[in-house]
């Protein structure tokens, strides 16, 4: 079977349509992950063991099991208890929760890396707990986290093809659909690979920039 450029151009609009969904799912998933991660990180720091322990276990469970199976679960099992999500929403939630367990670790490390002296100085200047978080700790904790968070953002982007299993018409699903009706796999799958590679390479460059920008600012 030969590589057919004409066919590539023919399927390009369809693939771009899928790419749009892929990017949308990634961005929405990242927002959910950023939020879920923060909640998990704070819950895991809770002095109340009835909160921190179960949350810790659930996070470990989610991190130890495949996203694909979790997606099936969200999409096909949750409706049994009355939760019916559209494919894209189910996918975004699945991605968000799965990667939230990763970002939680990033938050945790970032917060732990703020020296204890900073908490104490906040105390000694009589800032309240909330003020200490907002004005002293988070502004110092977040910049060093950004490269690590961006890393997961990229990883998540590369896992979006899983959403095809729950009928989201993202890039991979469009490619498969094209392949299914044309019986040609080489062009669509290769083009998907090219898209991923190009976007990943761009992100890697952006990531380098972020790393430089945010690790330099971290002098004390």
């Amino acid at each position, binding site marked *: 079977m030969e590589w057919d450029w004409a066919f590539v151009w023919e399927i390009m609009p369809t693939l771009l349509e899928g790419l749009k969904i892929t990017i949308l799912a990634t961005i929405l998933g990242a927002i959910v992950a950023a939020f879920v991660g923060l909640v998990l990180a704070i819950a895991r720091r809770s002095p109340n063991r009835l909160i921190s322990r179960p949350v810790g276990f659930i996070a470990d469970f989610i991190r130890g099991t495949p996203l694909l199976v979790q997606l099936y679960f969200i999409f096909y099992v949750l409706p049994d208890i009355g939760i019916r999500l559209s494919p894209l929403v189910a996918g975004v939630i699945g991605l968000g929760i799965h990667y939230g367990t990763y970002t939680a670790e990033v938050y945790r490390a970032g917060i732990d890396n703020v020296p204890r002296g900073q908490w*104490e100085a906040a*105390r000694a200047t009589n800032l309240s707990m909330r003020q200490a978080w907002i004005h002293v700790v988070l*502004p110092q904790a977040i910049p060093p986290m950004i490269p690590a968070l961006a890393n997961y953002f990229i990883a998540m982007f590369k896992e979006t093809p899983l959403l095809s299993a729950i009928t989201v018409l993202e890039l991979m699903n469009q490619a498969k659909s094209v392949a299914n009706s044309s019986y040609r796999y080489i062009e669509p799958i290769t083009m998907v690979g090219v898209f991923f590679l190009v976007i990943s390479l761009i992100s890697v460059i952006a990531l380098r920039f972020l790393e430089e920008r945010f690790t330099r600012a971290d002098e004390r």
Partner: protein
Amino acid sequence: MPSPIIHIDNIIKTYGPLTVLDGLSMSVMPGEKLALIGPSGSGKTTILRILMTLEKINGGHIEIDGEQLYHMQKAGGLVAADERHLQKMREKIGMVFQHFNLFPHKCVRDNITLAPMLTKGIARAAAEARAMELLDMVGMADKAKSMPAQLSGGQKQRVAIARALALSPKIMLFDEVTSALDPELVEEVLNVMRKLAAETDMTMLLVTHEMGFAHDFADRILFFDKGRIVEEGKPDDIFRNPRQERTQTFLRKVIAAGHRV
């Protein structure tokens, strides 16, 4: 005779199996300048941190300016203080740390204005004017817009002192504020503190290993060992004629190590 501004009554502090303070009591009069000296691990830092409410106590009572620090009146009885009470009490106390603990993400001026604006609701303009006054006093007015990372250790410590002063506490705690500094930078910080001691009637508690400075600075010296006050008195008495064996040994060692007394 006025009543003491700090009254520590029989406090106990343990870390796991280790009892650091075992029934310590002491009083400080308003405006007094006190130096705490003693061997490493004797509990000097611990007592300052307890006064700053950075540590919890396991027993005893502390009264600051006529009010209980770790307890409060409620429903007729004395109960453990809540965060609100602590926050109110902290207004009276400021602390300067060995490692400065400046906020690295804020410029010198914002380090100083942050707390007054947030905790006292002082307007930015007023807070900044006051910050500039204080920076002027510690000789750092020209660095108001610098970031902490651009300062030397001595400069950082002077900013930290200004930051603590900005809240106008009645009591200032200084924990080995020069021991993280290069030798040639120590003097600039001590000068600021001398000036401070001379110009204000703030109550000051100072932990230091600089015996010479303790001597010049303090009205009264407390010598700590193993979580207890072994000896106290006027600087001249303590340094020239220590009565306790342990004080003598300690001073002899410190002098041998080259510290001037």
